[in-house]
């Protein structure tokens, strides 16, 4: 049987600048978090990214990752939010 995946949605919103994706991805790689999907757009100078990641093998707890990413966001000047996928799944799928 396939291993169950622990999907988390990461959203990054804020003013566009160089290296946002690089910094977020570096953090994820260093924490053993696998990226499953990325979509990104720029609307009127605003950076908008949604990532679906798998945290099954992460070496930190969900809470720590969420705090780290929030802090990272503050450093870059964007807002980074981590949420478990279920909330979206439940809301938008019957």
């Amino acid at each position: 049987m396939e291993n169950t995946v622990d999907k988390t949605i990461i959203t990054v919103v804020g003013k566009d600048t160089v290296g946002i994706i690089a910094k977020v991805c570096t953090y994820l790689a260093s924490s053993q978090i696998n990226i499953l999907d990325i979509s990104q757009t720029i609307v009127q100078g605003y950076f908008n990214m949604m990532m679906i990641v798998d945290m099954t093998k992460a070496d930190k707890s969900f809470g720590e990752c969420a705090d780290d990413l929030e802090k990272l966001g503050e450093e870059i000047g964007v807002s980074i939010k981590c949420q478990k996928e279920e909330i979206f799944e439940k809301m938008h799928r019957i």
Partner: protein
Amino acid sequence: MINSWEVKETNNMVEQENLDVRTITIGISLLDCIDSDLKKLNDNIYKKITTVAKDLASVGEKIEKEFGIPIVNKRISVTPIALVGGAACKTPEDFATIADTMDRAAKAVGVNLIGGYSALVSKGMTKADEMLIRSIPMALCRTERVCSSVNLASTKTGINMDAVKLMGEILLEVAEQSKDRDSVDCMKLVVFCNAPDDNPFMAGAFHGVTEADAVINVGVSGPGVVKTALEKVRGENFEVLCETIKKTAFKVTRVGQLVAQEASRLLDIPFGIVDLSLAPTPAIGDSVADILCEIGLEYAGAPGTTAALALLNDQVKKGGVMASSYVGGLSGAFIPVSEDQGMINAVEANAITLEKLEAMTCVCSVGLDMIAIPGDTKATTISGIIADEMALGMVNQKTTAARLIPVIGKGVGDTVEFGGLFGYAPIMPVNQYSCDDFINRGGRIPAPIHSFKN
């Protein structure tokens, strides 16, 4: 797979439209705490509450973080204390010590309100019931977090008019003793007809005797989400309007269902129900009255209000029951005055009266809620208002309630400030004619017949 548009919609609901889980409430049975020794009883109660609910606050925070959804309140409801304290309490003062214990336990586990200082007297009062009711002013005055409710009537038993009369007097007593704080203690006291056993919302929450030892009930909110959704369908016909409310209610309720299941899993306490009420707060955009305006009324209270509210309430339920198999509690639209900025505006514009609010309670949950009335209102008049509200619930087989705040020292034209989530309220005029002889008759109003529906 979830797309970015859906993620954005959910996050907008939380960030801009005030979507939140209003409360996770643990219902705790205290029946196994009963003892004829008062001290032992109090010790048992404290131990049971602080054991069962010890992780409630931390679990709430964990869920908040994982899903990015605010959980505004964590609360506890317990078995009606009149049943629990009957064997040990010989005086109203004895009962009040149980309120002290509940307050202490609530503080120890970090919940902001604890409900269940209650008596169920829809047909008659035992000595314990009456002592508990007489102790309510003392109990609410001495404690911060204890909420009290009394079930005065039901469709199956009729209305206990002796208790209705007594509650009019008790309410004034509660108002009198907190008069230096605009009679705010009255906020913690509500009377019911057909009170549900699994209501997670305060002040009326108690853990019914039909419930398991402990149970998780969750109340969701989201008037702002419904309002925003309706802004996009302005001018469309009723079919489109109803579809939109249903779909939105579905999404909101799903959040409650998810949070309830997660809380149940983490606390290892069975999941009871999701209460899919639209519960407003004084925050701008978090108003049920604003939804009524969006449906097409200039102010809540204008002709058409009752129909609009009936529609809203029904569609919320229809969307909600699809989202959760276990819906319970009060489930519907709340129409408190002080907690809803749109409702306050309507009162200030003289668009809505006490009588119109009463009519609205026929088609929604729950009743006359958070309504400030002049402090010189007679006890019998208050009992009369309560009796009217009880009659609506009894005949229509629904839950109705009254949470009135007679503000001592203030009259029509004044405003009272309750603070925080409770908001403020302009004092509403009350019909000046007397119902003394009616209330003073004594006895009870028999249960209604449920054939010959007219």
